[in-house]
């Protein structure tokens, strides 16, 4: 990688920095500047209204719960797709990415049509006393939908590269299947599971389109933080919107940083193992 032979470093770097600066960093700086201008005391006051707190709590708790569901479901689906051969497997593998490809508004109205009290599934859940749409459960369902591919996709390459010899060794040494899975396989999958968890969490916290239809958006109960930001904007309450946005942005950045460190750590582990 001698800089001498290959051209375009200065032009490329200049262009990339200018584009990123104008499109991403300047607008984000405007948000931080706006929040800074409000001042810490005022910021805390804006954030401490019960409705704002409830919305932030729902977004964070819902995203956390959905990421946990996705770790379990993603481990199961990833395992089945990599380990077993059955008809339709390739098609199912392609279908894992559906939540990435399907526009969130479409996912939102589709999930609502399924889980509304008179919906496809909702009508059967209603006699059981379970209501999903227009409750926090609906928020959880939508967040799980949008976060689903992350765990499967981060897990699959690791599952494929698993050394069968190690499993066989564990088996020969007298471990049963459960022990082999818990003590041999699961530790190897941990970095990928954590990465998938963090990615699904990051996506679900900020998710808007697929959630707002099924959530019903009842203040204090099923109203997510991004929706409250939109509502504040519509009332020209820029300060209130910016305050909430800064909290969410800070969380996302912290998560991104954790993720980077995690990936660096797991790269070190893999090198150490190899």
């Amino acid at each position: 990688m001698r800089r001498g032979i290959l051209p375009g470093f200065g032009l490329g770097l200049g262009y990339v920095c200018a584009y990123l600066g104008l499109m991403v960093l300047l607008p984000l700086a405007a948000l931080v500047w706006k929040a800074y201008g409000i001042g810490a005391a005022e910021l805390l006051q804006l954030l401490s209204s019960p409705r704002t707190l409830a919305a932030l709590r729902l977004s964070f708790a819902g995203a956390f719960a959905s990421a946990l569901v996705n770790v379990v479901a993603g481990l199961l689906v990833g395992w089945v797709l990599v380990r077993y051969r059955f008809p339709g497997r390739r098609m199912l593998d392609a279908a894992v990415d559906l939540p990435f490809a399907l526009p969130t508004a479409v996912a939102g109205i589709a999930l609502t049509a399924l889980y509304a009290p008179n919906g496809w599934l909702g009508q059967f859940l209603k006699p059981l006393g379970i209501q999903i749409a227009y409750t926090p459960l609906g928020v959880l369902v939508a967040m799980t939908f949008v976060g689903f591919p992350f765990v499967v996709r981060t897990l699959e390459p690791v599952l494929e590269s698993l050394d069968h010899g190690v499993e066989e060794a564990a088996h020969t040494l007298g471990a049963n299947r459960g022990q082999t899975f818990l003590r041999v396989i699961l530790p190897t999958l941990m970095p990928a599971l954590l990465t998938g968890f963090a990615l699904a969490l990051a996506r679900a916290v900020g998710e808007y389109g697929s959630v707002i239809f099924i959530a019903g958006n009842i203040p204090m109960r099923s109203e997510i933080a991004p929706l409250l930001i939109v509502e504040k904007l519509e009332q020209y309450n820029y300060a209130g919107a910016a305050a909430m946005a800064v909290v969410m942005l800070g969380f996302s950045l912290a998560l991104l940083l954790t993720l980077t460190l995690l990936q660096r750590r797991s790269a070190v582990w893999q090198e150490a193992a190899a």
Partner: protein
Amino acid sequence: MNAIVLARPVSMRRGFARALLIVPALAFMALFLLLPLTVVFVEAFKQGLGAYWNSIIQPEAASAIKLTLLVAGIAVPLNLVFGVAAAWVMARFEFRGKNLLGAFIDLPFSVSPVIAGLIYVLLFGAQGWFGPWLDAYGIKIIFAVPGLVLATIFITLPFVARELIPLMQSQGSEEEEAARVLGASGWQMFFRVTLPNIRWALLYGVLLCNARAMGEFGAVSVVSGHIRGLTTTLPLEVEMRYNEYNYLGAFAVASLLALLALLTLVIKTVLEWRYRGELPAHASAH
């Protein structure tokens, strides 16, 4: 003989464990992925083909299609050029702050779509930084097409770069260096060596970028103002119809977007099967 008798119970137990895992996995996928997709089409065609067609050819639907194509038609090429430039810099050179630059390129993926819209409102809205100045010159960005384009660019910025960077890093720069040593100019090297090497990954990135650009909802929703026929893209049209209790119309427009999603998945899968070696490792088909 003995061995076969011994082997049978083991394989039957394996078959049982296999079914115990496969059935719930398939059930989860059917419930969470296939059913939502099915419901879109069933609801869209509930009252027959005529009613479906009728709600698609409404003028506001036509203008939403045009606007969606226009916004993606501007945002995707811009992010394509950015992605190639970013991949060239990131995969071919060592410099200070490279890790930071990589983090900034990925940043839009971790920002909520609503915040992506909000930041442009804070910059260009009536009460934003540049609001009064823009107003004085009669330029409209928020609640107009430029705002939609800006928000879409922000949301889809990392897609192309993210596919190209790992691929170009794994390919190395020997071929390009050879082209230079043999006297190729910078652009000759780019068009005859670099571009052919990355073309399928480039297409792959553009495909994903385009799907997100056409389907983006949250960010454009914040900057759009929902002015029918002027600033409503297809996903916003879905929302407006749904909120007007025009469920058939909402699902009819949604079915167009679902078709786009299906088409994207099919092309993506075909690319993964046919050009596995020419895509970054994480995009490999299983």
